[in-house]
């Protein structure tokens, strides 16, 4: 009896050992967001089944603690092998060494540029790609058709130009004494992109030079973009910043309170609107000026490798294999169904079913002319634009003066990063 037990034990140990020798365990990190975790779990399950030599384990953290966790873990040589991050963080993350270039021996640059839409090139830093997305996002105008009807507007003819947008906004705004009970437009989390990337490009100048070393908006175009946007609140009175408190307040006001008639939001909001909105709603492409120039802000979360993945060639190869898997066409389809974000492959963005979809269609159309503005330090550059409009809205500064201050501060960030 004892001998049998002993043999079993030895055998058990040996098989365990051989398994652990053959298998690579990858740790994957992303932030907490119901549908994203769900989609990734499904992908991991498929990947683990198809790749018996690799086990991927997903760990997630609240959004607000995410960067802190990554900083602490990578500095201690712990944490993820493959990590998800917002494309705008590439500059600060690679400078701090949280992420390393994708290994070219496993992920070919020519393939990246052929397979993905051009937006992905915004994370090519110093000739190296730092990550690849499963999905991309663009902006569009969400509007409440019921409120349009109530205001005597045609719910099937949403604004096509910014003039029409302001006119509709006025019809949709309801005041009670000096306060608002309903607003036509709810400025919110995406509006700094709306000013910097969309309005400026529509008016005729990109915000940054092609090599991303020079701020180009310290001029009349920048001033005009800021003035038009702040006038919506100060002159046209069709909106209020922070109408509903919180970073998702504008979306909450649109979806749940039903007191915001129009918002500019990303395709990432589709799922939330679809699941919670108890009214008739629609999506339309971003309005333009009379010149008809279209522009959109594209962005994405991407999968990158950390220094930890480089500790062992087998881990690095497995990480690259996993990233290739989660950016495959099948993975993108699954992500679209579960999360609602748009596919990042050229082959999929032209899919007729997607283009003609009433909700996804406007976002897909927007992707065609969307630009993922390259940031060196997204957090600081976002603050620059928020301060620019707050100086006008709250301190009565002239947009001409405020945009110059912003351009200088932004330029200082670019210069600082080059050092």
């Amino acid at each position: 009896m004892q001998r049998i037990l002993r043999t079993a034990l030895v055998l058990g140990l040996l098989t365990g050992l051989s398994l652990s020798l053959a298998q690579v365990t990858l740790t994957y990190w992303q932030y907490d967001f119901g549908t994203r975790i769900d989609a990734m779990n499904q992908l991991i399950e498929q990947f683990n089944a198809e790749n018996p030599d690799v086990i991927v384990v997903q760990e997630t953290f609240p959004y607000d603690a995410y960067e802190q966790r990554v900083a602490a873990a990578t500095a201690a040589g712990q944490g993820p092998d493959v990590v998800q991050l917002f494309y705008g963080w590439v500059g600060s993350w690679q400078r701090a060494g949280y992420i390393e270039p994708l290994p070219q021996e496993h992920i070919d640059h020519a393939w990246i540029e052929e397979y993905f839409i051009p937006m992905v090139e915004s994370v090519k830093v110093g000739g190296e790609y730092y990550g690849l997305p499963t999905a991309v996002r663009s902006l569009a105008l969400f509007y409440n058709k019921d409120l349009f009807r109530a205001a005597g507007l045609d719910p099937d003819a949403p604004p096509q130009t910014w003039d029409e947008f302001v006119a509709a906004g006025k019809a949709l705004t309801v005041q009670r004494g000096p306060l608002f009970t309903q607003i036509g437009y709810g400025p919110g989390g995406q509006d700094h992109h709306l000013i910097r990337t969309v309005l400026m490009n529509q008016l005729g100048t990109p915000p940054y030079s092609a090599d991303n070393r020079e701020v180009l908006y310290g001029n009349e175009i920048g001033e005009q973009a800021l003035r038009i946007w702040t006038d919506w609140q100060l002159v046209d009175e069709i909106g209020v910043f922070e109408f509903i408190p919180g970073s998702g307040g504008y979306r909450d006001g649109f979806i749940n309170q039903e007191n915001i008639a129009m918002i500019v939001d990303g395709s990432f909001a589709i799922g939330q609107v679809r699941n919670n909105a108890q009214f008739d709603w629609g999506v339309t492409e971003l309005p333009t000026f009379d010149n008809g120039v279209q522009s959109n802000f594209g962005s994405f979360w991407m999968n990158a490798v950390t220094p930890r993945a480089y500790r062992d060639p087998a881990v690095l190869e497995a990480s690259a294999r996993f990233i290739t898997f989660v950016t495959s066409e099948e993975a993108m389809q699954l992500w679209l169904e579960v999360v609602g974000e748009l596919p990042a492959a050229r082959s999929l963005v032209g899919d007729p079913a997607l283009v003609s979809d009433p909700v996804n269609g406007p976002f897909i159309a927007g992707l065609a002319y969307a630009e993922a503005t390259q940031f060196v330090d997204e957090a600081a550059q976002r603050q620059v634009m928020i301060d620019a409009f707050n100086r006008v809205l709250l301190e009565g500064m002239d947009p001409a003066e405020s945009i110059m201050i912003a351009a200088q501060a932004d330029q200082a960030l670019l210069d600082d990063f080059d050092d």
Partner: protein
Amino acid sequence: MIREPRAKRSSRLSLTQREAIYAYVFLLVPLVFFATIRFYPALQSFRLSLFTWHVDPARRVFVGAQYYQELLANPVFHQALKNTLLYAAITVPVSIGLGLGIAILLQAITIGRGWYRAIYFAPYITPAVAIAWVWGWMYNVNFGIFNRIIIEWWDFVEGIGLPWLAIDPQRFLRDPEVALPAVAVVIIWQQLGFQVVIFLAGLQGIPRVFYEAARIDGANPWQLFRHITFPLLNPVLVFAIVITTINALQLFDQIVNINFTDQGGPLGRTLSIALYMYQEAFSRARLGYAAAVTVVLFLIILVITLIQLRVTQRRVEY
């Protein structure tokens, strides 16, 4: 020959000596714990502040005092420093004054004192995040309770034909001039319960006989407070001032959560040093610079606390 008596002597420690040794041995455990998880990392942050940040120590570049020069010249740091000192200047005297006043009033009543104490203490044990969110809603321009009251008042005075009594709705957290005091009100409201409980405990420690004797000598209530309560409460007061000041200098949770879209805003007017440090460290991944900020914050707290102890901890004359 000489060793023997010595050995004997050392084995014959007095009881007090042996007790002291035991005490030190037991104290060593928390001391080692603190040294490893508190003091060592704190010292490390001094070191960190002299290098650029990279996860690989080999790729950190020594920059000396560069980050210190940078932060001394940085207007955002100046703003954060000014705000932080303002938070302390507002919240410390107001919350201590109110706390002491309420404690004295509570001491005068006997029925329901426990209930009142619990009510005042409740905000202190409520999570700062929840408090910040609720106050954020109350301060909201279009839907908040304060502006609702102002509008009701407006309607009322217009109804009775006195429109000049109307007040305009306020922007509160969206007003760069008002945002900081508005946040300070939240902090005072939250801390008040702590002060009340501390002062109640202090007041109960003052022997009744002093008051009785003074009353027999004909002292009025102000004299009782000035010459008995205040001096005998001095140690508690010092404790409260030092703790409240340190709390004010380290403000973070409330500020982060009360303006989530633009933390520390609008226009940096509610930004505290702790939040500034956090943003530099974790939103911008500049841990070297952030470490320099913590070192400066440490020095500020040290200096202020030493001054406070020097000024307030005088010998009390009875």
